[in-house]
């Protein structure tokens, strides 16, 4: 199909718009929303297949030729990210049916969710740096509303921090764009990649790259710009936390990778060395933060930060193998992290709390849930192989959740053998909550046992990242 490239943006746009027509009609919005995520998933897989078999795809809006118009580009990294956001979009939407309450649904949860997905996909696809800013804002404004939707005190408190820091981040991003335009006279990323190497004052380019590092660093929650994440991610309902945890920070990682492989490769020794330090400190501070927490979602939030460090480290090393690791790990991390939030949400529904002290007994009464958690925990052993100290610390707090929530009996029901302490969940809700968890766990296991195709994908993606000639040629049509 000709316009496959625009579908990951158009589908959520139409779904969102259609959903808003049924404002205050929760049921209609829900069905439209679910149908939209299925369509989005199919489109994103088609796009990945297309890019895999036919190479990098580019499309120019309004038929203005590339550096003058706005281009959409899908290389392998973009289409991998699009596909994974399609998968997450679908499973979290299913989970949300049972998780999001009727009020939030009525006030437009599903349409907002789709606008969020549109912003995420737009950021992955765009080949124009100013257009990327616009997609960022689309993503941000919908995430602001999703975060504050429901108006509870904790949510408002978290949302204020999240909104302010992101507004500052966007301003810095915009500043960087202004300087890039002043230096080169273009906004097209492929054209920028060529022109930035011809700028006389090379020091200025490196200075400008720092604007991008800071603003993308804020979105990706790297050290020392991560404070907003553990302050806000645990406040909304778990379906919203899960999609945020899975996708939003990874958009920041994606843009960092894009900027520092395509645009700013003039002084790799300097810029990537900074990234290396940042990534190391991010890894460490994340796990240390997690060790001090006793609320499931907060522990997981700090783990996100630590794991962002791993992804960025692949970029910092800037070798083929390191970038393969980054791409592979991003995919894996998104699946596992989203799933951990979903499992946490289910555990909360059963035990009535996110606090480790008040949870317990899940192993005895819900052994299958334990099995899934164990599969995810084995993943942290996996990380322990990558970086021993940090991995072990991750393991420490994962095990803490295991001991408290699964192994020890539910507080107050120590001698009970009927499982009376657990909340009852209807069969329909149980299915809706468990289906996404099992799907994602299956994906994790497939990647773990049969990594070959995923490795191939990451390999190709990393090659394209290290040698942007293909990208540039595809966009500029040479």
């Amino acid at each position, binding site marked *: 199909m000709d316009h496959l490239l625009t579908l990951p943006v158009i589908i959520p746009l139409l779904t969102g718009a259609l959903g808003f027509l049924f404002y205050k009609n929760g049921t209609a919005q829900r069905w439209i929303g679910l149908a939209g995520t299925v369509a989005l998933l199919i489109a994103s897989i088609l796009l990945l297949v297309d890019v895999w078999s036919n190479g990098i795809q580019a499309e120019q809006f309004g038929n203005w030729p590339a550096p003058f118009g706005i281009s959409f580009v899908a290389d392998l990294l973009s289409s991998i990210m699009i596909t994974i956001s399609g998968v997450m979009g679908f499973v979290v939407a299913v989970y949300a049916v049972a998780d999001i309450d009727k009020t939030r649904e009525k006030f437009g949860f599903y349409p907002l969710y789709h606008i969020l997905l549109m912003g995420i996909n737009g950021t992955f696809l765009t080949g124009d740096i100013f257009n990327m800013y616009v997609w960022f804002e689309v993503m*941000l404004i919908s995430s602001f509303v999703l975060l504050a939707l429901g108006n509870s005190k904790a949510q408002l408190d978290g949302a204020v921090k999240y909104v*302010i820091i992101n507004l500052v981040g966007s301003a810095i991003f915009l500043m960087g764009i202004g300087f890039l335009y002043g230096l080169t006279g273009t906004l097209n990323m492929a054209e920028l990649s060529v022109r930035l190497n011809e700028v006389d004052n090379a020091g200025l380019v490196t200075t400008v790259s720092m604007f991008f590092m800071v603003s993308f660093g804020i979105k990706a929650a790297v050290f020392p710009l991560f404070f907003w994440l553990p302050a806000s991610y645990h406040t909304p309902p778990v379906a919203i936390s899960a999609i945020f945890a899975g996708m939003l920070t990874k958009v920041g990682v994606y843009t960092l990778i894009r900027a520092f492989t395509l645009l700013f490769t003039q002084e790799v020794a300097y810029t990537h060395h900074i990234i290396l330090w940042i990534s190391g400190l991010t890894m460490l501070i994340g796990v240390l933060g997690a060790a001090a927490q006793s609320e499931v979602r907060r522990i997981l939030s700090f783990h996100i930060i630590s794991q962002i460090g791993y992804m960025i480290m692949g970029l910092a090393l800037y070798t083929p193998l390191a970038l393969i690791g980054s791409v592979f790990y991003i995919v894996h991390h998104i699946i596992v992290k989203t799933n951990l939030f979903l499992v946490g949400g289910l555990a909360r529904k059963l035990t009535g709390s996110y606090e480790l002290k008040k949870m317990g007994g899940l192993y005895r009464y819900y052994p299958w849930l334990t099995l899934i958690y164990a599969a995810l925990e084995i993943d942290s052993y996996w990380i322990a192989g990558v970086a021993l100290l940090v991995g072990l610390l991750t393991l420490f707090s994962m095990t803490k959740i295991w001991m408290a929530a699964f192994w020890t009996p539910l507080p107050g029901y120590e001698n009970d053998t009927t499982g009376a302490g657990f909340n009852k969940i209807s069969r329909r809700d149980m299915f809706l909550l468990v289906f996404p968890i099992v799907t994602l766990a299956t994906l994790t296991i497939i990647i773990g046992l049969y990594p070959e195709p995923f490795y191939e994908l990451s390999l190709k993606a990393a090659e394209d990242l290290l040698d942007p000639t293909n990208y540039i040629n595809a966009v500029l049509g040479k």
Partner: protein
Amino acid sequence: MEPLLAIVVGVLFSTAIYLMMQRNLIRIVIGVIILSNAVNLLIFTLGRLTRASAPLIPYGQNVPLEDIANPLPQALVLTAIVIGFGLFAFALVLTYRTYKEIGTKPVKEG
């Protein structure tokens, strides 16, 4: 013109940063608004300033005959203003709701 605008941008930046370091939430929000306007002015300046020549191409020509003002930064700034407007409307409402729900306490740490 450029040096003058550069100084104006600098003053706006320092004002914004000063305001953002206060503990009062509404001042922080106003600081962010000023910051965003400073950035808009910055983009405008970086697009090079040309006085009194509109970017219009005479009928029958393919290129402009004289030096013209650069229209692209203006389009960028316009987009950024519109986006900023939406975001700040939201930020102000959020601030108001927070004030109603949580009270007049200054920004909490952590």
